[in-house]
């Protein structure tokens, strides 16, 4: 690594907080981000595994300000959103959000997004960090024919994810909004840490219950909110969590990561995300024709979940082999699963190998190590009465 690239890394408003907490920092999509906090917090030991377990059993706090945000406003904004994304945004009520994706004409991914309906003629797309510029340019280019204004508002917000079964109890201490009324994938506006009209969404990337809040991105405000959340979190055993735990948590929940399960060469149907693709919505959308064609023709590969049977850890880009040792596909994400205590992976294989229980091998340092196709998501959070 050269000093020149370090200087070019972007920093969130909480960079100083992460460094003071002793976080191990990493370049993620051009951002200087915490990967884990080995020192832990308030006497609780940290590190990736502890952070992962904290989110599954208690609560964790993530700085996800590197995520981008695009706002579309104006009388043509719904039509614009319908044109550029695969889910049916006309079904959204104000204060509701859903998972969707921006597609190329070939049905492959520009990015996956969460679409929030802020109001009539007002939508917010939350997009990935590594694809921010590309996404903004693509959205601008593909919405020119619509009466709407496209704004890149990614730098306006510090985005904090408070995740885990205790997230609701913790955040409720800091806000006047009644969080029990906010359903999964809905959001509200309330006073948080004395900041009025703060957006509070019941969303996340951990396959756990939790909230994401959007606060002004100046350093002073951002640090104050982080501090108050951590302070209020002490009694719940909170840990600051880095991108390492974020990755293993989302993998257990089979949530796609751009550049891994989804990319500009992988289609929606291959990624097994067809349920979010609404072919019957009123508007045409970019990628629809190609996907309908592929649907008719069939796919050559599909994303499956693997669990290692023999000793070994599948890693990103490792080859998947059939039982005779012939290459049939590749791993998109592979890791030990800290909560499930298994070695798991997501991989592309031909459909005939996609049945639950199908036996395959993963090539690890030249050796074929036995694995099998298992149901996904690997982890599903227990139902709780609300």
């Amino acid at each position: 690594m050269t000093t020149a690239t370090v200087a070019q890394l972007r920093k969130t408003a909480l960079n100083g907080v992460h460094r003071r907490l002793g976080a191990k920092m990493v370049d993620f999509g051009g951002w200087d981000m915490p990967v884990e906090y080995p020192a832990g917090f308030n006497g609780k030991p940290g590190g990736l595994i502890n952070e992962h377990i904290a989110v599954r059993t208690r609560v964790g706090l993530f700085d996800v300000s590197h995520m981008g945000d695009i706002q579309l406003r104006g009388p043509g904004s719904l039509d614009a959103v319908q044109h550029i994304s695969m889910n049916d945004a006309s079904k959204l009520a104000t204060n509701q959000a859903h998972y969707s994706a921006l597609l190329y004409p070939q049905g492959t991914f520009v990015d996956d997004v969460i679409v929030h309906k802020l109001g009539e003629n007002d939508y917010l797309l939350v997009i990935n960090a590594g694809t921010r510029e590309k996404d903004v340019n693509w959205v601008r280019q593909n919405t020119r024919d619509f009466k709407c204004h496209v704004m890149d508002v990614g730098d306006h917000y510090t985005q904090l994810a408070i995740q885990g079964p205790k997230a609701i109890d913790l955040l409720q201490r800091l806000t006047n909004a009644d969080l029990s009324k906010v359903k999964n994938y809905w959001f509200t506006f309330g006073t948080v840490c004395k900041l009025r009209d703060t957006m509070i969404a019941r969303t996340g990337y951990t396959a756990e219950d939790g909230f994401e809040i959007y606060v002004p991105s100046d350093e002073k405000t951002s640090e104050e909110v982080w501090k108050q959340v951590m302070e209020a979190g002490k009694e719940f055993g909170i840990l600051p969590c880095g991108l390492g735990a974020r990755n293993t948590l989302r993998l257990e929940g089979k949530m796609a990561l751009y550049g891994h399960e989804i990319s500009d060469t992988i289609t929606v149907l291959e990624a097994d995300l067809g349920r979010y693709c609404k072919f019957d919505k009123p508007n045409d959308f970019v990628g629809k024709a190609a996907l309908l064609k592929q649907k008719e023709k069939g796919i050559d590969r599909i994303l499956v979940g693997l669990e290692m049977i023999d000793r070994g850890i599948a890693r990103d880009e490792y080859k998947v082999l059939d039982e005779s040792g012939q290459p049939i596909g590749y791993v998109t994400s592979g890791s030990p699963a800290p909560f499930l205590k298994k070695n798991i992976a997501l991989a592309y294989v031909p459909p005939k190998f996609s049945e639950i229980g199908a036996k395959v091998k993963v090539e690890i340092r030249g050796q074929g190590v036995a694995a099998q196709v298992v149901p996904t998501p690997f982890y599903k959070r227990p139902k709780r009465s609300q």
Partner: protein
Amino acid sequence: MGYPTDRKYTKEHEWIKPDGGSATIGITDHAQQALGDIVFVELPKVGTDVNVGKTFGSVESVKAVSDLFAPASGKVTAINEELTTASEKINSDAHGSWMIKIALANPGELNNLMSAADYDKYVAEEAGK
């Protein structure tokens, strides 16, 4: 930090502790810190020959795979089986967690390695880069 002075160190962050004609080998505290939570160790079989500077196994954290390089040549006479089921011991006590024991083929090879003080300086320089 004070690295134990009873052994030598490599630039790849292994330590080797000689004991007569044999030696035990492990990774340094600095290495375990850099790796994070260690979840998997792959070690050679007893009787295998390891060669100085060449890979003899691997160690994996949740996030990463890292090769292990032999600080010296020799025949493996024992492996620390405990680490295959309790690899987290390397995180809690890297300098006490030996991985393999070898019969040294050429004890003179250890003269090419760093002392504790040199290694300490080397780690500090690496961090400053």
